[in-house]
């Protein structure tokens, strides 16, 4: 689904459609056309879409992350319209959450944000019975709510507890971030921002600069250079999921 599989057939149909369009609109009845001719976008050409040459990733430095600070969580909630009053506080959506950790032997404490790790081999995609949970060509894992049936199998499969289920009707969504009752949702790297060339809201908001976002495939990007130079960790690396999010200092 990421990219068209049968290119020759699509190419033929495209050529055939162009030929028909060239002859004039073939209308069977008012408004009923044999082949729909795609309308040109009046505001400019549509974007190229996600490219498999890119793999979006994040690097989080826990040494810079401050215990008790939740600016990233708030920025995520603002950007993605997670603002509902909950009937049961346990049902709240957590696209990103702060976790405080302690090494019991030496009392070392530190804090980190945890969210969807955007696996290259995502278990949520493997188990989804409808194909709603999918990975975009650029490595962003997200839920197609149009096909999500709310079975929550992906929530069970995710080793990072990254997904949430919406239990109640919502009315105050942000226009660019549709979300609603009966569907599973999770961090999508603020895909609506990334497609505009912006960074995810959490990265943008972090006052300590603890989060770095970039293209893991581009050897010249800051994130790839730092991962090549410095020690980084994937959480539960033993699962061999090839995560898009990496941590330092854990």
């Amino acid at each position: 689904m990421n990219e068209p599989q049968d290119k020759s057939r699509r190419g033929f149909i495209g050529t055939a459609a162009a030929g028909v369009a060239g002859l004039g609109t073939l209308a069977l009845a008012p408004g009923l056309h044999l082949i729909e001719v795609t309308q040109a976008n009046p505001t400019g050409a549509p974007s190229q879409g996600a490219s498999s040459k890119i793999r979006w990733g994040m690097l989080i430095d826990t040494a810079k992350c401050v215990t008790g600070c939740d600016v990233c969580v708030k920025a995520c909630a603002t950007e993605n319209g997670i603002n509902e009053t909950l009937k049961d506080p346990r049902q709240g959506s957590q696209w990103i959450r702060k976790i405080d950790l302690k090494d019991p032997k030496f009392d070392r404490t530190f804090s980190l944000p945890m969210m969807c790790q955007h696996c290259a081999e995502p278990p949520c995609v493997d188990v989804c019975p409808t194909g709603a949970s999918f990975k975009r060509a650029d490595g962003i894992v997200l839920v197609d709510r149009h096909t999500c049936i709310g079975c929550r199998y992906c929530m069970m499969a995710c080793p990072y507890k990254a997904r949430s289920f919406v239990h109640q009707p919502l009315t105050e969504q942000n226009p660019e971030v549709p979300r609603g009752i009966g569907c599973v949702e999770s961090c999508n790297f603020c895909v609506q921002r990334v497609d505009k060339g912006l960074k995810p809201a959490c990265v943008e908001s972090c006052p300590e600069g603890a989060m770095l976002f970039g293209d893991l495939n581009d050897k010249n990007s800051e994130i790839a250079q730092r991962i090549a130079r410095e020690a980084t960790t994937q959480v539960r690396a033993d699962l061999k999921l090839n995560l898009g999010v990496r941590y330092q200092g854990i």
Partner: protein
Amino acid sequence: MKRVLVGFAAVLLLAPAVSIAGASKPTITIENPGECIAPAEEMRRNHMEMLKHQRDRTLRQGIRGESASLNGCINCHASKTTGSVTGKGGFCESCHSYAAIKLDCWDCHQPKAGKKHATAEEVKP
């Protein structure tokens, strides 16, 4: 069997007459008159197909800025009084309730026009 078929045909013939007599046509107010992305006849018949194909390209392939979009719909068609395309007399709802088609786009998508989207820059301390 034949009698059943005749009875069925009679119901089919009567049905349109009954519906025409029983329901009043929807009243559609276009708040921002202008040119839609396609002629009205085509929009009436094909808007669902346009939106469906566009949504898959946007969500799954990340292609943004195509002509058909729900945000595009509400920009022109949201009511000036309620700000929405849903509710009684709303642009979408008036036809859909007439045609008895459940409209669930707006369970997830924001049906009100001009709702401000706060940016990450604004929440930065």
